């Protein structure tokens, strides 16, 4: 039996030789690949050796790193995290970051190409210079107002969004999605805890992680009438032109007639366009849409930014948080001809028309800014670790010109009338010219309506200061008036913060 025993000894040696050879392959040949692999959590842990830069709003840091003395040297914390969650995002220990934390990750972490000089200097001095700082365009007061007013809304809406932008530049003044979440547990160094917090948010049926201001679309209701009015103005209809209205209108081929929100609204057979906007006359705009035709309606919406799939909000240059495309939806019969019933419904922002709150704000902003729609952005400035070197600063750029200056002026006039004596009275701000359009959109057969308001504020000289969109999901009765009230408060706060008041 000794000969086979010796051979077994040799076999064991061969087996161990194979193990040894294989370990050489992994730990020597493939070592670098594995060490720097995207799947390797240690790469992320190494990031915690350098102090990550701040994300600041109006001189206050709302995302900052605090020294821990632990294995991961810095803990990312978000003071007032709930209020800024959907803008800042969060930086987890495992996995990729979100929001601005993701967009400007390289700069914040200090690993971007722009900061290479700092890293080289560190190599000689042995210091660890932190990452760069990101300054946001947000207005502290506007953001706080938007968050508080939205969450304390008087109609008991649980979900919603608000976004305000500076019409002249596109700089975002406030961005809130309701319900919000606390990003702090998600950045916990205890990854089990962080995972648990994330899973809880992920499972929440109100989807607090969703950014409703940018990435969620809903039927816009009557706010869509601004686009309809623009199309009408460009097709020979003036503010004072009488258009057919009435207490009810049944489009050719439609089963159900379209009615107005109240019997007191435009029961006469003809109203002026101006009155139709002021009162939010459904029958008037439905017939206007059918008269203009689907192509013109779709084209106008597209010129205002509908159908754009690659819009982002965020960085100084290109890139940013993804924005869902707003859609006018289908208005055709299966044979290709226009479905008048669908067109009539679409003309009052129902049927398959879907819009993001950002798109609503962009419409209002273009109207306020003489027809020039600016690209929205969140990052005002990239400030070096030394807090003096500016690496990049925002250069506003025009996105498109949906309407001419004259049409914009007419729209402004009509929208101001909405706030002066129409459905949007509660948006008024003392001493400023405020215009807007309310919207009440059916959400489903048995669910409460969504409330919308899009609007803008100008100073006495007509300089646009703020454009806003507030959306209260399934707010029910009084939703659009409450949205108008909140919109006014947000714009007033943004104006106050910019030192105009």
């Amino acid at each position: 039996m000794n000969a086979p025993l010796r051979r077994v000894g040799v076999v064991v040696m061969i087996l161990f030789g194979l193990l040894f050879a294989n370990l050489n392959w992994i730990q020597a040949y493939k070592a670098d690949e594995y060490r720097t692999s995207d799947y390797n959590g240690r790469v992320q842990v190494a990031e915690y050796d350098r102090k990550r830069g701040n994300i600041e709003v109006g001189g206050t840091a709302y995302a900052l790193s605090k020294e821990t003395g632990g294995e991961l040297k810095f803990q990312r914390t978000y003071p007032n995290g709930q209020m800024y969650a959907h803008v800042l995002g969060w930086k987890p220990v495992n996995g990729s970051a979100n929001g601005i934390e993701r967009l400007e990750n390289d700069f914040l972490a200090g690993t971007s190409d722009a900061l290479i000089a700092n890293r080289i200097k560190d190599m000689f001095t042995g210091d660890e210079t932190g990452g760069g700082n990101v300054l946001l365009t947000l207005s502290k007061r506007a953001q706080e107002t938007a968050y508080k007013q939205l969450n304390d809304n008087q109609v008991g809406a649980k979900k919603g969004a608000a976004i305000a932008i500076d019409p002249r530049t596109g700089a975002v003044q406030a961005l809130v999605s309701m319900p919000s979440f606390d990003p702090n547990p998600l950045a916990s160094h205890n990854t089990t805890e962080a995972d648990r917090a994330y899973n809880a948010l992920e499972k929440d049926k109100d989807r607090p992680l969703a950014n409703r201001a940018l990435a969620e679309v809903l039927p816009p209701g009557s706010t869509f009438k601004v686009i309809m009015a623009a199309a009408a103005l460009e097709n020979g209809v003036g503010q004072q032109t009488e258009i057919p209205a009435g207490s009810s209108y049944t489009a050719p081929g439609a089963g159900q007639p379209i009615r107005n929100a109240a019997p007191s609204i435009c029961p006469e057979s003809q109203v002026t366009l101006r009155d139709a906007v002021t009162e939010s006359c459904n029958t008037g705009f439905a017939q206007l849409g059918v008269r203009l035709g689907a192509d013109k309606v779709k084209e106008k919406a597209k010129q205002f930014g509908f159908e754009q799939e690659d819009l982002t909000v965020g960085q100084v240059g290109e890139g940013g948080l993804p924005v869902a495309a707003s859609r006018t939806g289908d208005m055709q019969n299966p044979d290709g001809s226009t479905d008048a019933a669908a067109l009539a419904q679409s003309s009052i922002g129902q049927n398959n028309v879907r819009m993001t709150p950002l798109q609503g704000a962009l419409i209002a902003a273009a109207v306020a800014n003489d027809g020039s729609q600016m690209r929205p952005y969140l990052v005002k400035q990239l400030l070096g670790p030394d807090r003096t070197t500016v690496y990049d600063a925002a250069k506003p750029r025009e996105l498109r010109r949906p309407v001419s200056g004259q049409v914009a002026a007419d729209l402004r006039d009509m929208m101001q009338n909405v706030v002066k004596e129409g459905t949007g009275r509660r948006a008024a701000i003392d001493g400023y010219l405020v215009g807007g359009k309310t919207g009440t959109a059916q959400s489903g057969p048995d669910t409460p309506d969504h409330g919308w308001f899009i609007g803008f504020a100008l100073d006495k000289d007509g300089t646009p200061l703020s454009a806003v969109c507030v959306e209260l999901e399934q707010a029910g009765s009084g939703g659009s008036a409450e949205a108008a009230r909140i919109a006014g408060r947000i714009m007033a706060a943004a104006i106050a913060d910019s030192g105009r008041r």
Partner: protein
Amino acid sequence: MTAAAAPAASPASTGEQPGVRLARSRRKAELSLLLLAMVLVAAYAAMIEAKALDTVTSDFWVPAAALGLVFLGLHLVIRWLAPFADPALLPAVALLNGIGVGFLRRYDLAEAAPAERANLAVFAGTGGRQLAWTLAAVVLAAGLLAILRDHRSLSRYAYTLGLAGIVLVMIPAVLPGRFSEINGAKLWIRVGGFQIQPGEFAKLALLTFFAYYLVRKREVLSLASRRVLGIDFPRGRDLGPVLVVWLVSILVLVFEKDLGTSLLYFGMFVVTLYIATERVSWLLIGLILFFGGAYLAYLLGSTVGGPFANFYDRAQIWLDPFAEPYDRGYQLVQGLLTLGTGGLFGAGPGGGQPNLLPEVQTDFIFAGIGEEIGLFGLSALLVIYLLIVERGLRAALAVRDSFGKLLAGGLAFTLGLQVFVIVGGISKLIPLTGQTTPFLSAGGSSLMANWLLIAVLLRVSDGARRPVTGGGSAARPGGGPPEQLHGAPTEVIRP
């Protein structure tokens, strides 16, 4: 009860000749190697604390000292009960066991909140539990040495052990999942918070049975055969019982969804058969059977599924773990990344991030250790394992009786194969199957079973090196050629 068991009564007491024991027992070498091992374990603990805590606490040496006391106790038991046992076995195993305890404490440190790390109690957590298990396992090993004064007496209980082995293997398969299943493998008996892995003990019992049975039948198995296509096949009736044992354990293991253990049992069986019969044809048949079976299971898994789906899954992960790096392949991918991060020299004890690797305290402990001690450190660990296996085989070579040869040879090979299966599994050499890494992984069953295995090897090596009774033999060096000459007549002379 049998012929093989008959000589068992006589030799235990006759070989003790004081002069020889003092001169050749090599117990002093064992003691100094053991002390060296414990110094290494203490140094390892100190390095871990220096790196992970930035300071060395005043009681870093406590686990090493506690282990040292436990092993010293076993050393004394060996001096008393097995004075001629191989002196390298205990220190080598003690070193591995100590590194295991040290690494598990290091794992506790990584899991603890940073503020609590410095105050982590020595006997708390996974590391503390492993320390307690070590004590239990060593006591068990000492007990076996005390009860089993001659390894040949084991053969008396061969059938009992064989039956016990089968029962142990089958219990988890029969038990409902909630009592037996952890991570998809039905390998456990869970009662309350307590769980044991009976398969770890079953391998010892089954091997004893194989060894006994094959010794009795080896002549028939190797001589009475039919030649087909140049290969000698044994008569079916001789092989029947062994095949049944093997088949039953394989079947049960397929239902327990653990192919690693199945591979282990099969390898154990084929190699003992080969050692017993000296016929290479058995190895060939075994290899073909195994790879054929594995391939068949793979095909069945991809088409039929059912009990084979698990194996198919594992094979898929093995072929391309990076295909689903966050899903099915997560464990293996993280294991590879951990090993790769370690590189040649490692991050230094305490310098890695074992908490990023799932199952690092059990299946993946070798990778977790590898991150910190690198390729060089892991090679050293492999050499220690190899040393233990080859020492076991050496005891098998030196022992005089066939049962002892088969027992020691089979046990030593099984240990080596288990290391191959798990280390090969986590390093993507072979499909990953859940096995414990002997002496390193957290867990009492594995530790106790493997220490029992070492106790048997110690007992056999003691029997092998113990000077034979009578005249001039006392002057000869133990374990030298004359002993083999002495043993020769018991061998069957074949062409």
